[in-house]
């Protein structure tokens, strides 16, 4: 039944790590008034994002670019009178969006760096040389093997690198 849809989506969010508190929102707008992004661009408003999610607008929330415009500064979360963990809710929404194939290019880059080097910013030959010049110790390599085991155990590798054409 169609009227079950908003609830289904809400339940999906609240059952995810980070999404638990979304239903406490009473739409006061404190988050938006304290949000550095909302104050800079009309493209983003956390109160509206939460509203859309609570209304069950699944596609609009998970397929659009709005969820990626949060700067994760936690201002909203700090000040929400209802203790909605807004920034964490947005992480939960992003986690869901990624699983549905909404993966911005920059996030694919981060994931690739993590999987291959164990770091998001691989070190260059130039920097290695500079480190020696400054008398800094050589950078110890990350334990990529252990990391890969962890990423396989959580399914991270499959979330990010599923085969072309595979269903979400």
């Amino acid at each position: 039944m169609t009227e079950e849809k908003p609830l289904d989506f809400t339940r999906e969010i609240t059952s995810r790590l980070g999404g638990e508190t979304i239903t406490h929102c009473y739409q006061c707008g404190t988050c938006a008034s304290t949000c550095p992004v909302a104050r800079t661009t009309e493209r983003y408003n956390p109160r509206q994002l939460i509203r859309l999610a609570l209304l069950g607008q699944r596609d609009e929330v998970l397929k659009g670019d709005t969820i990626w415009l949060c700067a994760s500064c936690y201002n909203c979360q700090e000040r929400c009178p209802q203790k909605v963990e807004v920034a964490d809710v947005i992480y939960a929404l992003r986690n869901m969006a990624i699983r549905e194939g909404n993966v911005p290019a920059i996030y694919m880059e981060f994931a690739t760096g993590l999987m291959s080097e164990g770091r998001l910013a691989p070190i260059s030959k130039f920097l290695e040389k500079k480190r020696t010049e400054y008398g800094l110790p050589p950078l110890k390599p990350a334990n990529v093997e252990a990391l890969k085991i962890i990423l396989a155990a959580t399914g991270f590798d499959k979330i990010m690198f599923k085969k072309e054409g595979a269903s979400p």
Partner: protein
Amino acid sequence: MTSYALFLGCTIPARQPHYELAARKALTKLGIELVDLEGATCCAPPPIQSIDLETSLAIAAYNICLAEEADLNILTLCTGCFESLTIANRLLKENRELREKINKILSNAGKEFKGTKEVKHYLQVLMDDVGVNHLKQNVVKPLNNLNVAAFSGCHLLRPSELLRFDDPERPRIFDTLIEVLGAKSIPYKNKLRCCGGLLRGYADDIALAIARDKIVNAYNAGADCISTLCPFCFLTLDLGQMLIKTTYKEEYNLPIIHYAELLSLSIGVEPKELALDFHKIKVDKVLEKIG
């Protein structure tokens, strides 16, 4: 001598050796021994949390396990690392169900999170282990009333419920540590507001607009420099001024200096011992004022 496992993270050692160099010199000089952890990985900061929160907790917990095995508390420089590791450490210590879930994942890699160690940002180490008085006694070159716009970055303070670093609305620790060095921590508009750094690479125009606000507000308040703790804030504000120049045709030339560099200079490390050439906005004006 107090020892810590130094958790460097990704960005500082690979992109900002000036931060690492200054921090190592200053902390060692102040009697803190830094031990480099074998095999440490990325801390799983917001970009990875955005992909999968559970994976991020597992990665952070893995790194905490390394410190537990070495029987050392963790010291972080980057506020992003501080946030990721502190959140994981607190959540897993305080939530048994979650700890069991993450430990099940970690067991595949032969690790178990026990919850026996602390994660500290180096400002806490300066407050708790070095102490303000001892630090003051070590200041041989006071910073001569340099007007410093303190900018801690978001993730030193928020989410305060888990980070528990300082009062999130009226923090004092960073300002205190600046003033101990003989500088002035000046008030400026929207001091606690984000630099927009995490939007770089996705929405560069918005990120730059937010960074510009930060620069303008500090500049208008008469800052000689902005002092940072986070490598992303540094990049966003230092390199950012180059981008502001081309995009907005505005030039501020406001030096961005990591606190560890100010600290080093004040306790007698010579400028030539630091890697100040890594700053896009030159810091000469600051060095002149310090004398």
